[in-house]
Structures are given as C-alpha cells and as structure tokens.
C-alpha cells in the first residue's frame, strides 16, 4: 500500500520540478523581451535545463510503469511522444541565432506545458488522497 502512495508522491515532486523549469523558461523569455539578457545567455541557460527536464519526466513515467498506473501513463503519452520527436529531429535545443523567430512558438509550448503540468499536479494529488483514503477505509474493515 505504501508503495502505491510513494509512486504518486514521487510524481508530485517530479512535477513540481518540471513546473519550476517551465516557469524559469517563461521568465527567461520575458527577460529577453525586456532586454535583461541576451540570446546566447538565454540559450545556454535553457539548454542546460533540458537534460534535467527530460530526466525528471522520464523518471516519472518509469515510476508510473512500475506502479502499474495505466491512466497516468496514457495521459502522459502525448508529451512523451512529443519530447522524443523533438529529440530525434534535433529541434529540442534553442539556437541563439533563431531564438527571436522561434520565441512565439516556444512561449506557446511553455504555456501549454505549464497548464498540463498544473492539471496533472492536482489530478495526482487527488489520486494520492483517494488512494490513501481508500486504503485507510479498506484496512478499517
């Protein structure tokens, strides 16, 4: 029982990390717009965050796999597929010479990811509580 709860707990922590990375990206974009940073710095910062982001997300999916939570895996599948596609097509890294052209797209992507992660966060929280409460109620019988 405890193991199941651990899966969701881990997912919640991973998600907070992922949300943090997306927020850093969004703040960096607005910094670029208001001239607080330059494209080279921005790209090195955001490209450095890519590996941790993929690692966290991958770990979360693996945790779900181990825990056998199929709904969550299905929900995360589109994002997983999208990450893999970007990696294979080598578009995942930001290019300082093209960043101003790509910014509207990247910003939209960041907002969508943020929305998705926020919804997932509350959904996993609900699932965790549900699981714990159910386990408590079951053990009461």
């Amino acid at each position, binding site marked *: 029982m405890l193991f199941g709860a651990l899966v969701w707990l881990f997912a919640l922590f991973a998600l907070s990390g992922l949300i943090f990375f997306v927020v850093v990206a969004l703040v960096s974009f607005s910094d670029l717009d208001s001239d607080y940073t330059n494209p*080279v710095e921005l790209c090195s910062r955001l490209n450095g965050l890519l590996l941790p982001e993929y690692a966290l997300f991958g770990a979360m999916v693996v945790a779900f796999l181990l825990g056998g939570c199929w709904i969550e895996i299905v929900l995360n599948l589109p994002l997983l597929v999208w990450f893999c596609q970007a990696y294979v097509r080598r578009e995942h890294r930001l*290019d300082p010479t093209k960043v101003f052209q790509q910014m509207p797209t990247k910003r939209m992507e960041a907002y969508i990811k943020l929305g998705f992660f926020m919804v997932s966060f509350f959904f996993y929280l609900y699932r965790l509580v549900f699981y714990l409460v159910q386990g408590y109620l079951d053990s009461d019988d």
Partner: protein
Amino acid sequence: MQMKQKASAPFPPLPEAFADMSIDSATEKAQAQQQAQAQAQAQAQPQQAHRPTPAGPTFTPEMNCPQEYLSMSVNAIPATAQLLTKSALPVGCVIHPLITDAEIPVVSFSGKIVRCRVCRTYINPFVQWTDHGHRWRCNMCDFINDVGGDYYSPLSVTSGLRRDINDRPELKSGYVEFIAPSEYMVRPPMPPVFFFVIDVSYQSVASGMLATVASSVRRFVNEYHENPRTRFGVVTFDNTVHFYNLKSSLSQPQMLTVPDLQNMLLPVPEDELLVNLSESKQVVLQLLEKLPKMFAGSQQVGCAFGSAVQAAAQVTKRVGGKLLCFLTGLPTHGEGKLNRRDDAKLLGTDREHTLLCPADPGDFYKSAALELSRLQVTADLFVCTSTYVDLSTVGLLPQITGGQVYYYSGFAAQRHATRLSDDLLDNLTRTTAWEAVFRVRCSKGLRVHAHFGHFFIRSTDLLALPTVDTSKSFGIQLSVVETITQPQAYIQSALLYTTSAGERRIRVFTSSIPVVSTIAALYSAVNEQTLVDIVARMAIEKLSSARLSDTREAIVRKLIDLLTVYRSQVTPSGGALPLPEQMANAPLYTLALVKHPAFRGGSDTRPDERAAQLAVLRVAPVDEACVHMHPRLICLSPGSLPSGDTDPATMPTPLALSSAQLDPRGVFLFEDAQSVLLLVGRATGPQLLGQLFGVEAITDVDTTMTTLPEVDNDYNRRVRAIVAAARARHAWPLSLQVCREDVPAERALVVSRLVSDHSHGFYSYHEFIAQLQRQLSLKSK
C-alpha cells in the same frame, strides 16, 4: 547628390521572341501578343515604380528617403491584416545603409538628440508640430513630446512648417546622419582593424593565392592606406597556427608558432601582434615580402582554420575589427575540424538541401561566430579553391558576424589573381562602418516580422553588426498586427556606427508610405525589383528547412498566387495571363530565380557553389541581386552598336537570355553581379578579331587577359568604353573574363545562365508562360 547612372530597361522587346512561339490555339496566340505588347510598354517606362507623395498638409516628396537607401516592395501598406494575407504580396523593404560616394546631410545637436520619449524614434520630417511648435506628435506612436528650449522654433503661418526648417536637415529630408554624443558609446570609438588569417598550406602556395594576397596587401599599405589609426595583424595556418610579432621597434618581423591547437594562448602580448599600421609599416612590408618565400616549399596539407579563427579572436578581442580569412581547403586539424560530406550521390536528390545546412560538428563555427559578434569582430571569407570546404558550415562565420563570402572556384593565379586583388583592395578601402547596431521601427499597426541578411539579432529588432559596408543590404518583412486608421504609415531605420575616422554617427532613414484598403491599390504600387528581392530572401530562409525542389515550387507558387489574386480581385475579365503593369517582368524574374545557381535543379551544381551564391543573394543590394538573377546580355558586334551617338559608352539594348540569341559570328557581353564575360563567337571573322584583339584566329585569343588590349580603331575604343561602363555601374569591382565559344567549358559559363532557355530541368520562358496560363485557368475553374 552623385547617383550612379541606372541602366534603363534591361529587358528585350518581346514581340519577336514570341513570333516563333508555338501555341496551339489562335486565341492564346492573340493573348500572348497582347501581353507581349503590354510588356514592351512596361519596359518603356522607368524601372522604378511611382513613388507616391507623402500625404499630409506639410509634406513634400523630397522628404521621403530616396529609393537607393530604402526601397519598399510595395509602395503602399494594407490597412488590415486580412488585406495583407488576401493580397498574397510580401510587404517589406530592403535597406542599403551605405552607398559609395553618397552625400548625406550631417546634423549635430547641441544637446541630446531629439527622440520620442516612448518609442525612441528619431526626429524626422513627418512629425506633427502642435501647440504652436512647442510640442511634437510622434508619427510612430502618437505620443506628444515636449520641445526643448534650444530646439524650439515658431511655425510659419502659411505653410504650417517650422520657420527654421531650412536650417534643419533632419526636418527636411528622410535621410540624415546625426553625430552621436557619448551616451551612444559603450567604449571609445574603435580604430579600423584589419586582421588577416591566411592559409599557407601547399594548396595555397601552389595555386599562387599566398603570393597574390601578400602583394595586394603590400599595395594597400603602400598606396591606399591613409588612416593613422588603422591596426594590422596577421596569423597564418596550415596544420599549426603561426603568429607574427610586428612591433615597430623590431628590425624584422618575428614568427612564433604555437603547437597546442586546443588551448590557444598568445605567445606575446596582443599589442605586438596587432599593431598600428603606420608605426610598424616597415616591419609589415618586410613580412608581406617574406611571406610567400617562407612557405614556398611547404608540403603541409593540413588546415587548422578553426584554431586560427580562435587565435585571431584572442588577438582582436579587446578592440574588435575585421578578419579577412583566406581558405583553400577543408578544416582538418585542431578545433572545428569538419568531415567531407559532399557525397556526389546526393546531388540532384531530395536530400541535397542537407548539404546546404550547417553540419552537426559545425556547432563550433556557430559559437565561434557568436563570440566574434560579441567582440565586435566581422569575418570575411575568401575561399580560393574548388575542393570541398563545406562552405555551408564555415560560411556561418560571415553569416552571423555580418561578413561576406568571396568564392573563387578553381583558383589559379593566372586567371584569378587580378580578381582576388581587386576584391581585396575594394574590401580594405571601401567605406566601412564599425561596431554598428541596426534597428527598424514602424508606426502603429505595423510590425517587423522578419529580418534577412548577415547579422546577429542581439535583442528584439536589434541587429548586431560588427561591420557594415557599401556592399551590404538588409531585407525587412513587415506584417500588419492591427488595423491602421491613419492615412500614412512610417518606417524608420537607424544605424548607429563608428566611422573609420573615429566618429560615432547615427544614420537615420525615414519613409512615409500611404495606407490603402483595396487590393487594386496595392498591386498598382508594386516595386517589382524589390518585390523579387524579398521573395528571393524569403526563399533562402525557407531553404534552411525545406528541400530544394520544394523551395523552387514555393517560388513559382508565390507568383501564381499573386497572379491569381490579381486576376480575381482586380481584372476579372483580363486575358489568360493578366499582369499588372508594374509586374510585367515578374514571370521572367521568377524563372530566373528558379534557375539561379543557388536554387536550380540538376546535379551539376556543387554544394559549395550553391552556398556561395546564397551568401551573395542574402546581402546584395536590390539592383545587384536582380542583375545577378537575370544577367544582361548585350551584342557587341559592330552592326549592333548604336550609331550616331557621341557617347562611346552607350550600350545597345539588352537581349533576351536565350541561346538562340548567341550568333556564332558575334561578340557578346554578359554581365551579372560578379563578373563581366566577353563571349567571342566561334565563327567570328578575322577582321573583327583583328579589330578587337589584334589577332587573326580565335585560337590566338588569350582568355586569361583581364583587360582588353588597346588596338587603334574606333570599334575597339567603343567596346572598351562599353566594358568599362558595365563594370563601373556596380557597387563593387567586377572582373572581366574573355570566353571563347569553341571551348565548351567557357561557353557553358554563359549558356548555363541563359534563363529563357529550357535548361536545368525547367521550362523555357515561353513554356513557363504557357504553364502559368494553364495554372491560372485551372485555378479559375
């Protein structure tokens, strides 16, 4: 103001050309005749589209920035975004900031430069003075600014203009230069810096490149160099990098080799490697004399170009400047070494465009270029070889730092030495702007959508240009973001730079463009050459992610879209191929673009050649780009030269670019943006040869000559005057090459560029017109 004599209509009268066209139906033939007549009429008109008067109570036509500096693709702005998309017209402009021998009014403000407080637009002729001249309304953002005490002048009652307008060039003309006070400098103005990065491997010595470069630079130092602040430095490389200590106190230059290619450290302080040219003149001259001899017997074939560039960056990092890099092979040693990826099997296939994108290990060149840009260093690249150098990757250096690519395929001293020497001297002596930034601002409702050219975008809309010179231009594409309610829209471009004399200046161009709300008005304001240039630049952008065939198709589809919209919106009852007057030559230019060496099909264009041509199209000013796409072919046979004219340099009308025009008994002049070719027909009579070259048979014609021989007769004088005039009307020196039609390789130089032929797997001009008509009639069904 001195302005270059523009060539009159470069296109041939078409009716004869259409005479042998085999079109099936009689009606089509009649329509083709009609259209040919319309085209002939269009050519009789001046090339430049009508420049509308800026509307408004106090504006006059002289206030607009002249077309040479800022030319719009469409001299009108659509009022809404829907209108822009519906019209399918690419609305944008091409800005050519520096023009040779141009006089531009210079203004010095006693205090700060007058700019709008909100949008930072510079004061320009189109602002509106309110409150009896005490305040001014910015034409870009409508903010009302206060006028400082020292700038105030009462308004004239009759005209509404300021009383002191004749003393203020910035309020009278749309092109002006401000002297920038110290707020516009982050460091003291830099001196001109020329740093040479020269390949000294076996290939470079054997082909004669090293000797040519050394003698050209010696000529520059001796004859052309005047500026007492210029700094100079040299680094040579084969498979190691060599530095040269040029301290003025030395009796002779000292060569220092650094063996470690990975961690480039300077062996001596940089002020001994980058010296003041006037002070160290003798040491420099000694070095340039010795350089070819030092490496004369070199058998090294390695190339440590990446490391050499890093070394150069280390030397120039405190000052900035210009790197002139001479390369004769693929970088094989040290940092930035590249692999050969020019698989001949890929040419002509769908995967050919991958050869035009930078290679993966090319990340080195991108980050090196970004670093150079940060240090205010531009890299110009002279590639003197026909072996593969992966110009798509190495070319990132000039592309991101605002430099230029010079490509001499199959460099051999006999043939190319004069060309290289002329180009190098032009590069060193032309007007150059140092440590520059460039920004374009537009009025409310408009936004800059994309920039085209060689630069690095350092911040929103801000282009970082370590160097700009007279051969560079920038393309801007505009988009409409909200409905424009004003009758006029405004564009202002500002180039903040340091002159070679060490003065900080701001060159401001402002143009006023009428806002229209119908498609007909847009199409009647099209500026054909700029439109074609913008389409070409957009196609170059597309090439970085799409296949060559897709790019060509997109170019043709753009033309078809324009014609479809024109037909459906403006002339629903027009013929089979309705063309607006201003776009009469658009199909010809489209065909020329699709067959340009950068884009054309077939499998005989090498990737380096394509990359070099793309680099030319990206920066060339509008008229050069158009002549490069559609070169000029003139017949120089005695019978074709215009008679009864006092000026020997008057040129005959240009011919259609088809091989049917190449009379084997004639002599032809073929002019594009890089060279002037004199094609001698294979059956040219001995009399003509004698008059022109002083020889009897075509086999005696020396095709390595770079100037025509002076033979004492009128015809020779006229031909030489015409050739000189053709070479003089360009922004940079053109080389002359004599080609014999009986030598297939030389004939191919001209014939491969004849766009009206059926060549490179694409239609001839007549077939293309027929194809367009077919597509249009399909679309209207």
